[in-house]
C-alpha cells in the first residue's frame, strides 16, 4: 500500500501542484478528484482577531498574582495605574505575553506598552503572532 493513499493526504495531494496521479488509486484520478470537496485543512487555526488576543491577555492577567485584588481588567486598563503592577511586574507580564503569542518584543517597544489595549494592538500588528 503506498503512503499517498491515506485519506488525509489523498485530497490534499490531488489538488496540489505536484502531479501525483501515478501514486493515487484509480478511484482518485484527477477528473474524479475535481468533483470532490476541495482541501481538508486540518492544520489551519482561526485567524487571530483582536477579541481573541484580548481574551488571552485577560486570561494571563487573571492568573498573575501581583494584579491588584478587585481590579477590573478592561481594554483601557493601565498596567500600573489600574492593575497595580509596578514596572518590573509589567516587564514580566510582557515577557509572559511574548511566550503566549510566540513573538519577541524589542526593549524600547516594550517600554511603550502601558495599557491592555496597547498590548492588543501591538500583538495584532505582529504577523507572526499565534
Amino acid at each position, binding site marked *: 500500500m503506498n503512503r499517498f493513499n491515506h485519506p488525509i493526504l489523498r485530497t490534499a495531494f490531488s489538488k496540489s501542484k505536484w502531479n501525483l496521479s501515478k501514486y493515487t488509486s484509480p478511484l482518485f484520478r484527477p477528473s474524479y478528484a475535481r468533483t470532490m470537496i476541495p482541501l481538508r485543512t486540518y492544520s489551519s487555526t482561526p485567524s487571530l482577531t483582536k477579541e481573541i488576543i484580548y481574551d488571552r491577555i485577560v486570561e494571563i492577567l487573571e492568573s498573575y498574582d501581583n494584579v491588584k485584588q478587585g481590579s477590573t481588567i478592561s481594554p483601557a486598563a493601565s498596567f*500600573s495605574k489600574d492593575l497595580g503592577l509596578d*514596572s*518590573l511586574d509589567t*516587564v*514580566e507580564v510582557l*515577557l509572559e505575553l511574548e*511566550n503566549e503569542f510566540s513573538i519577541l518584543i524589542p*526593549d*524600547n517597544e*516594550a*517600554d511603550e506598552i502601558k495599557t491592555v489595549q496597547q498590548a492588543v494592538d501591538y500583538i495584532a500588528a505582529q504577523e507572526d503572532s499565534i
Partner: protein
Amino acid sequence: MKYSGLQKEVLKLYRSCIRQAYKKPTENQDHWVRFVHEQFDKYRAIPKRDFATIEHLLRTGHRRLEMYSNDNITDVH
C-alpha cells in the same frame, strides 16, 4: 509616565534576567525567577535619584547575570 534612561537600563537588565531564567532547566526555572525577584527586591527602596548606587548595582547585576548565564550552572538556592 515616561521612564528615565536609568530606569530603562534597570528594566532591560530585569528583562534579560527573566529571559535567562527561562533558559535554565524547566524544573529549576521557578527557583531562578524567585532568585531574580529577591535580588531586585533587596534594592527596591533606593531613591530614583541615587544615580551612583543604581549605576553600581547595574554594573554588578550585569556581571552576575553573565556569570549565572553559564550553562553549567543549572540551579540556584
